[in-house]
């Protein structure tokens, strides 16, 4: 894989113009971020949202006509929230003055704000198994995103596999778009699912989707306690091997959509210095992190679906607005409590089985960016993520361990936060943008001059 060459250079004046100021800065325009921004702005706080996608909505609302999304987005517009899209946050300065730096197609965008709400969501966890790097093998949400982006799935044979409430939702979506979904293979057992389902009577309808009801209605086979052990094909995927207990069989397919639950995007909270507990950003009842004035909401604090993200976002936004917002935040606490309990049950129901650790064979590539094979890691027995990186280059490539970090954390029982890259740039950025970041710091410190 080779790097991209970028064109064009920005003038010094342009760099200075890019420092904006606001009262509340929200990072992430998913449900949590949008709800946070609305709440803060409706309390009269000047609010900016930075998001790295061309369209707002996060993973779930993006590129879809959703009445809930339309409602929240028009509310944000009415409240005067300023949305900056295609702005990927890659660094921050957190001393007396707080400046967050993002890269946009036009170069650096820096925002100074005393109060920051992080709502960077989650991503899928991939686990390595033989054949997982073949073209045709994608994430579960990954394939859904490709279809949202225009990929035609009409008449294609698809196996959806991995773990989590996302699988049935993805299967249903693909089915709606003409795919022939041959099977949903969920690694967790029926026993665990039933234990989870029994305690779900009080849960919103989204959760019922998560329980696999929809696929069954649509006639899609849903098999629990089942996993993909290999993907086959030369230049592209032709079939997968499945295992359930001692039974193994093969299914022909054009796509394998495979993801093992979601993991929070902790890079930014860790970079800013927020405390992490049990793999999630630690927050108090106001959604405030260990850093005063920095709030976390949504999947960063627990994986619990869109309802929970909306509630947490509102609490964070109201709390960030100060005195005026706090009673409103407090009024939402009971709702959050119920939703958080649900999130914890989800975590337990879809806990990954130990035998998934053995799916990767010695020849299986575990780090795609740097082509590191499992045997290389096993031979060195590095003992920690840092040593694995240093001695095998695992996680040192362009994705900085975003893909292999959560997998290695699971396989080797290394704490999630130990596999999070904590150095800027959080994402690959143009050298020019990285250079401009320091100039902005000079401006911020020396002149205090900003562009509102």
């Amino acid at each position, binding site marked *: 894989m*080779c790097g991209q*060459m970028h064109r064009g250079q920005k003038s010094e004046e342009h760099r200075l113009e890019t420092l904006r100021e606001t009262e509340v800065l929200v990072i992430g325009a998913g449900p949590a971020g949008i709800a946070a921004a609305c709440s803060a702005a409706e309390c009269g706080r000047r609010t900016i949202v930075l998001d790295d996608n061309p369209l707002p909505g996060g993973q779930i609302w993006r590129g879809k006509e959703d009445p809930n999304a339309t409602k929240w987005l028009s509310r944000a517009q009415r409240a005067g929230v300023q949305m900056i899209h295609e702005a990927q946050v890659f*660094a921050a300065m957190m001393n007396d003055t707080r400046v967050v730096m993002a890269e946009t197609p036009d170069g650096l965008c820096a925002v100074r704000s005393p109060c920051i709400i992080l709502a960077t969501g989650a991503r899928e966890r991939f686990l390595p198994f033989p054949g997982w790097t073949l073209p045709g093998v994608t994430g579960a949400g990954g394939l859904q995103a490709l279809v949202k982006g225009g990929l035609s799935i009409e008449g294609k044979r698809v196996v959806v596999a991995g773990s989590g409430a996302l699988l049935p939702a993805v299967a249903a979506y693909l089915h709606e778009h003409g795919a022939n979904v041959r099977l949903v293979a969920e690694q967790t057992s029926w026993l665990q699912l039933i234990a989870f389902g029994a305690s779900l009577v009080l849960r919103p309808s989204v959760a019922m989707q998560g329980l696999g009801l929809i696929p069954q209605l649509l006639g899609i086979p849903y098999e629990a306690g089942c996993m993909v052990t290999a993907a086959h094909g030369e230049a592209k995927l032709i079939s997968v091997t499945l295992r359930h207990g001692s039974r193994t069989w093969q299914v022909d397919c054009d796509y394998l959509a495979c993801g093992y639950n979601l993991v929070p995007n902790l890079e930014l909270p860790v970079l800013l210095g927020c405390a992490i507990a049990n793999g999630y950003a630690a927050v108090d009842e106001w959604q405030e992190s260990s850093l005063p004035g920095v709030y976390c909401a949504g999947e960063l604090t627990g994986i619990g679906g869109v309802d929970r993200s909306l509630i947490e976002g509102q609490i964070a936004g109201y709390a960030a607005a100060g005195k005026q917002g706090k009673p409103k935040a407090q009024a939402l606490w009971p709702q959050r409590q119920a939703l958080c309990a649900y999130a914890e049950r989800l975590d337990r129901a879809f806990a990954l089985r130990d035998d998934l650790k053995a799916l990767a064979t010695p020849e299986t590539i575990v780090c795609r960016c740097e082509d590191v094979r499992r045997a290389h890691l096993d031979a060195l027995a590095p003992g920690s993520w840092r*040593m694995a990186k240093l*001695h095998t280059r695992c996680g040192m490539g362009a994705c900085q361990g975003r893909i292999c970090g959560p997998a290695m954390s699971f396989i080797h029982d290394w704490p999630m936060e130990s596999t999070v890259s904590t150095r800027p740039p959080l994402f*690959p950025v143009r*050298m020019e943008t*990285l250079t401009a970041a*320091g100039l902005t710091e000079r401006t911020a410190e020396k002149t205090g001059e900003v562009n509102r």
Partner: protein
Amino acid sequence: MMALHPLGSETVYDVAIIGAGIVGASCADEAAAADLRVVVIESRGIGGGATAAGMGHIVCMDDSEAQFALTHYSRELWRRLASELPPDVEFNPCGTLWIAADDEEMTEVLRKAAYFGARDVRTEVLDTTQLARLEPNLRPGLAGALLVCDDAVIYPPCAARFLLERACARGAAMAHGWVEHIDSRNPMVIKLSDGRSLRAAKVVYAGGAWTPELAPLLAEGFPMPVRKRKGHLVITDRYPGFVRHQLVELGYLKSAHSVSADSVAFNIQPRTNGQVLIGSSRQFGDEGSTVNPAILTRMLERAHEYMPGLANLTAIRVWTGFRAATPDKLPLIGPYPGDARRILATGHEGLGITTSLATGRLLVDQLIGRASAIPVEPYWPKRMDKEAAHAH
């Protein structure tokens, strides 16, 4: 696999080496090869200190005769070892180009060429056109450069690991832990923070920039003359062929020489996978590992001046590391003034990857009374302070 020091063992080692950076690893390799009973103690993992942060440029320097002797000798040891190094050490004999921006710096190129020429170091003097042909991404119109042909680049953490594995194959042991205190009984008792202790006749302090934490004094009343000097590096995505040699501006010398002010210099390196590693900065007084955006920007601006195309590449990571700096820019290799059982191997500043092999060799020469290939006295710690030398 590495042999571990058995828990509760009564072994009295001939030498205990504190630190598994590249210097400690080389000392262990040499000591084990001389049939000494060796243990290496490290808490952070192999090569996790400055060795993980350094650029891995194996370079012949000419600051002083002593610096030349050490870097040149060590570079020869690296070249001899090259064929045995595993692929992940990425030994790349790409040579160094010392870049002259103008005619004044070109006279420095000629002086260096003469100095190296007189000492059998292969070089070539390049003019504007020849330089542009060798490195087309440099800005046009630079005056020229000196190519030092036999300089090389390696990946340091894997080199440290290779040396330690070889030491272990020859009988050395590893112990995991942080050394808190050394009791100068006979044999010496090395106390770890987890309560364990090990015993050894001699101790080598190869703790890099952390050595003063364990050994705050060089002699009574004389602070250990090693200070942390912070550096930043940036690595890009893969751009094979973008840079072909280690490129260093001659102005680098001014930067590395100034022993007080913060400084930056154009110093970049091709990795074998096509990544470009960009340095370098030097700062005293900042002992936190966080990236300092202001100095990072200065460093990158300097790099863009020499190589404008860098601005359009993608950076994937920035990190920092600490060099162990001494006041006279030479390492401390040899016994404490007044206590021959305690031996220092630190203070290698920005040259510890280069000089690690010579450090191990010279140190073990002295341990076993073997003749050395170059004079060892210039690196003795007792030079640091005449009074310190006579304090005992």
